[in-house]
């Protein structure tokens, strides 16, 4: 795809000046910010998920059995 793009004649479909327009600059920054946000989310997905409760030591003991067997 990139090779094709490089092989296309310059500015055939769109004038190159569009790249220096204000609208394009806004679009580029909009996409840049979004990309950074999604990169952060992608990074979070790579790493193991952290749970605050794992670090807070709590002895979890039920006051009564939850089993279907009343005397369990």
């Amino acid at each position, binding site marked *: 795809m990139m090779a094709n793009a490089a092989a296309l004649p310059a500015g055939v479909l769109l004038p190159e000046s569009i790249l220096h327009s204000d609208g394009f600059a806004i679009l580029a920054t909009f996409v840049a910010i979004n990309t950074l*946000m999604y990169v952060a989310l992608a990074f979070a997905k790579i790493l193991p998920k952290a749970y605050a409760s794992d670090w807070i030591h709590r002895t979890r003991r039920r006051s009564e059995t939850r089993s279907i067997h009343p005397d369990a």
Partner: protein
Amino acid sequence: MGAGRFNRAVGLVILAVAGGAAALLWFAVAAGDRPTSGTPSEGIVFGVWDVVYDTEAPAPRIAVAAIALALLFAAGVASLERRIVRRSHRTTDAGQAPLAPQLVMASTAGVYAGPVTVTVLIPAHNEEASLGATITSLSSQSHRPERVIVVADNCTDTTVEIAHRHGVEVIESVDNTHKKAGALNQAMSQVLPGLGDNDVLMVMDADTSLDQGFLAVAVARLTDDRALMAVGGLFYGDESAGMLAQFQRNEYIRYGREIRRRRGLVFVLTGTASLFRPRALRTIAESRGLSIPGKNGDVYDTASLTEDNELTIALKSLGGLMISPSQCTVVTELMPTWRMLWAQRLRWQRGALENLGAYGMTPQTFRYWAQQLGIGYGVIALGAYFALFTVMTFAQDSWIWFPFWVGLGLVFVVERVVTVWKGGWTARLLGATLFPELFFAAFLNVVYVKGIFDIALGRRATWNHVVHTLPPQPVRRAG
């Protein structure tokens, strides 16, 4: 119900919120200072490749803010969801949450209702091709179900004969016009009254097979916790060949990984295979038309296109405890063509939106709203990305590399590969190539947008069904 319902407006609400968020960012960008693009430099890579590159990167202040915002959103949604779940587990309000664990515990204290037994309902509409494998996967479980009932709904093929041949019971639906949900309601009205507190009902699709150990784990969970109202399966795709199948497999692998990372916190009690305590199903039927949508007396809401998603929200709304253990996995059928996938996803999307519209904004639907809004924003973000790419491709005189952005792209590649690692080399390879999956995401985004517009414009939605037929039986020669 009544108050808090959105119905058709759900599409407009999502459009407005996701679009509003994007517009806000757009205007903030337009109002602020933008970095002026520097002149690209030229360099030689590996001594032969002449490249033009641009070292442009966003200002650190903006980059940090964007990253922090995204992580805050993700962490905020996750922690809010956990808080809601914890609170609903502690409630003792019998009017609002009759299935709350403490209430169930109190009403069953000191009573032994017998061991956990499993009755499987398999709704089937012309499923002759896959039903046999489904029944076999049940009978070969280390913990076999006590009863298996095929709920034959308007079948014109050999579904009923196959069920009989495998020695399981059959309930045929009568004058059912409400598809799967209607057939299941009819079957449940016959089966439910005879079941005790620990005689759980499992609903399982006829195109699905249980992995070994599914029932043993589910039964152990239901034995250990009498307040547990439902156990949901985790599905992954079958081994169909082709790129489209691999896209779907990757998607399911990532979904399963996400549920495991949520430590079993249920998103949807999948229709492919989930178990319910009779108390849960009875309470849902009694509450319909009163505190939750639907017709009083029906277990499943026949108006919903995604009855499993609706049942999950119903159960959550009534305070029921549920879990998706990581060992409870099932293999399900993948859509064989793009057209079928389109229809399936449009139904899922439409169903999810309708369910949100019917329930409105409640603590129990918060996570589902967040998901819809997240996808909505993603559609806009990906669309903007494609737009930028297109403009650059057609307006530049030579290809310019942006090392900063290529570097970030590598993070995406790693994420795509790591999240499907379990799927083997084919899955990883597809993930690593990034762009095919990006186009698959774009396809799903188009479905999403169509779903939103359809519901906003009040268009009718329809079911789809993969038609299977058995291959012709080879004629056996004598001798």
